[in-house]
């Protein structure tokens, strides 16, 4: 039996166990899923009130498409960051290091867990969106395939960012609050929540360099009517550019993460976990 492949298999079942455990913890469930539920509710309300956005697509559908991108940012960057910073501190990562090929299993488990969580969160928005939100839906099988690859590539672009930040930040509690604000700021400058066109030019310039604008654009191309493309920056969906920018972010991110993560893991030791524990005890008193 190949030891590395064996560790991958152990990692898959580890990820699945962790995913199931997420459903047992009310707090964790809430932190992952309140965004989808909130936005579906908003979209349905906008829809029923008949709020006119002036666009080709009803505003409820636009808001919900933004929520899909926003959720991927929260899972890919904020959740990954927080999990990694926490598990470095509490000794989870150290345990993985102490068994043969344990870091392989650990990494695979995180990918499985995050993927399952993302699929769940997106399904929680897309399924009610298709059923109840006017103008939100697939025009054909191609649109569904587009949503799939945009989300997958988007996660590949975002998760390394979360992993890199998670290995640089030493205090998980501070880290999480520090990370949420920039995440929201990035979402704001990326035209995910409101039209990109109304942002100042220099903000647009920043937004275009970041992956989230392109992720949002890709999602809109999948779930909004084709006529909505006229309201985009280029007047079209620009799918090749979406794929290109996300792929560059993914490649660079993976390269940096592959360099950084083993270094971070090497620094993990029992006495560091012990020190973090004593620090946490002090804070608790």
């Amino acid at each position, binding site marked *: *039996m*190949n*030891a590395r492949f*064996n*560790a991958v*298999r*152990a990692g898959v*079942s*580890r990820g699945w*166990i962790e995913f199931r*455990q997420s459903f*047992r*913890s009310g707090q964790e469930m809430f932190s992952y899923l309140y965004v989808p539920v909130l936005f579906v509710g908003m979209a349905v309300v906008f829809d029923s009130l008949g709020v006119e956005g002036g666009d080709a697509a009803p505003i409820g559908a636009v808001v919900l498409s933004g929520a899909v991108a926003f959720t991927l940012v929260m899972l890919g960057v904020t959740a990954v960051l927080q999990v990694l910073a926490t*598990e470095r501190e*509490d*000794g*989870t990562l*150290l*345990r993985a*290091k*102490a*068994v*043969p*090929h*344990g870091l392989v*299993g650990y990494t695979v488990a995180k990918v499985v867990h995050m993927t399952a969580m993302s699929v769940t969160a997106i399904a929680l928005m897309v399924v009610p969106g298709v059923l109840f939100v006017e103008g939100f839906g697939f025009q054909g099988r191609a649109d569904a395939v587009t949503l799939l690859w945009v989300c997958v590539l988007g996660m590949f672009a975002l998760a390394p960012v979360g992993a890199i930040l998670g290995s640089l930040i030493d205090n998980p509690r501070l880290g999480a609050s520090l990370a949420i604000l920039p995440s929201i700021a990035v979402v704001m400058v990326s035209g995910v929540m409101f039209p990109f066109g109304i942002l100042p030019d220099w903000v647009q310039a920043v937004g275009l360099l970041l992956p989230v604008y392109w992720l949002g654009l890709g999602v809109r191309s999948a779930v909004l009517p084709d006529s909505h493309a006229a309201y985009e920056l280029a007047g079209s969906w620009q799918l090749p550019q979406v794929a290109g920018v996300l792929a560059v972010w993914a490649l660079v991110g993976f390269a940096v993460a592959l360099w950084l993560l083993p270094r971070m893991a*090497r620094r*993990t*030791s*029992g*006495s560091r*976990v*012990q020190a973090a*524990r004593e620090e946490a005890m002090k804070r608790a008193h």
Partner: protein
Amino acid sequence: MTSHMAPGLARAEALASGGQGEAVVRVSGLRMDYGDSRVLRGVDLTARRGEILVLLGPNGAGKTTTVEILEGFRRRSAGEVDVLGSDPDHGDEEWRARIGVVLQSWRDHGSWRVRDLLHHFGRYYAPHSSAQRVRPHDTDALLELVGLSEHAAKRVRTLSGGQRRRLDVAIGIVGRPELLFLDEPTAGFDPRARRDFHDLVFRLADEEDTTIVLTTHDLDEAAKIADRILLLAGGRIVADGSPDQLASLVEQDSEVTWTVDGQRHLHSTDSPARHIAELYAVHGDGITELRVTRPSLEDVYLAMVQRHEDGEAELAAEFSKETR
């Protein structure tokens, strides 16, 4: 298990008759600096197959640092280190599979069930199994061995402190390690749990031929379970030997106390037996409450640590040479 002493004695005999076993850990001139402070100042040590080696020393002596370097979790500043034939800085996963590390858990894996977690970590060892050493341990048998069978379905976060530590030990040995590291394993144990733990350590050394490197600042524990004690103070090994050898090192006489005619007496001597014989010759049955106190490990420990703290590190190093 009938008695925790029997296997220990059996092993001691085996070590005595079989001479010195194969060296599993070899360290010479190990140094560790954190910034400007030098934590280890040239540590030399050897651990042989099946031996229970205890690193004893006050807090801050460098015990944990030493163990983490041997585990491959920390890079040394200088010195030669060989653990199971590899430099721990470059130990591969095959090497990792032969080593067990008992970590002090905190709140990791809190929502896992005990049995699931142990089974999960066991899976990583399956490809490293051999006819001589079947890896991993059977999950249920191991839970039985550490006394967690009835808690197998519980969430880890609901375990008591002692139960968690037993789970830590189980995870550390699930891969049937040839070499096991335990850093302050019994901190926070009650006497009963401590006794059970010591039994388990003896079983591992005897039945599995596991070499055990354990740190503690508990003298009593060191005296009970060690085949050999290394006393670490100020970043150096200042004494090295069996508990009895160490006790015989202090230049301190035995104390004889006795009572004659309601009067209590005390006499220090290097030959207590002769003194007692003389006492009987003089007083006969008039002697009551006779007691001989030999210098204990505690005396050695305090003497060595004291010498070090008095800045007599050089002297202490001389002392350690004498003991080898």
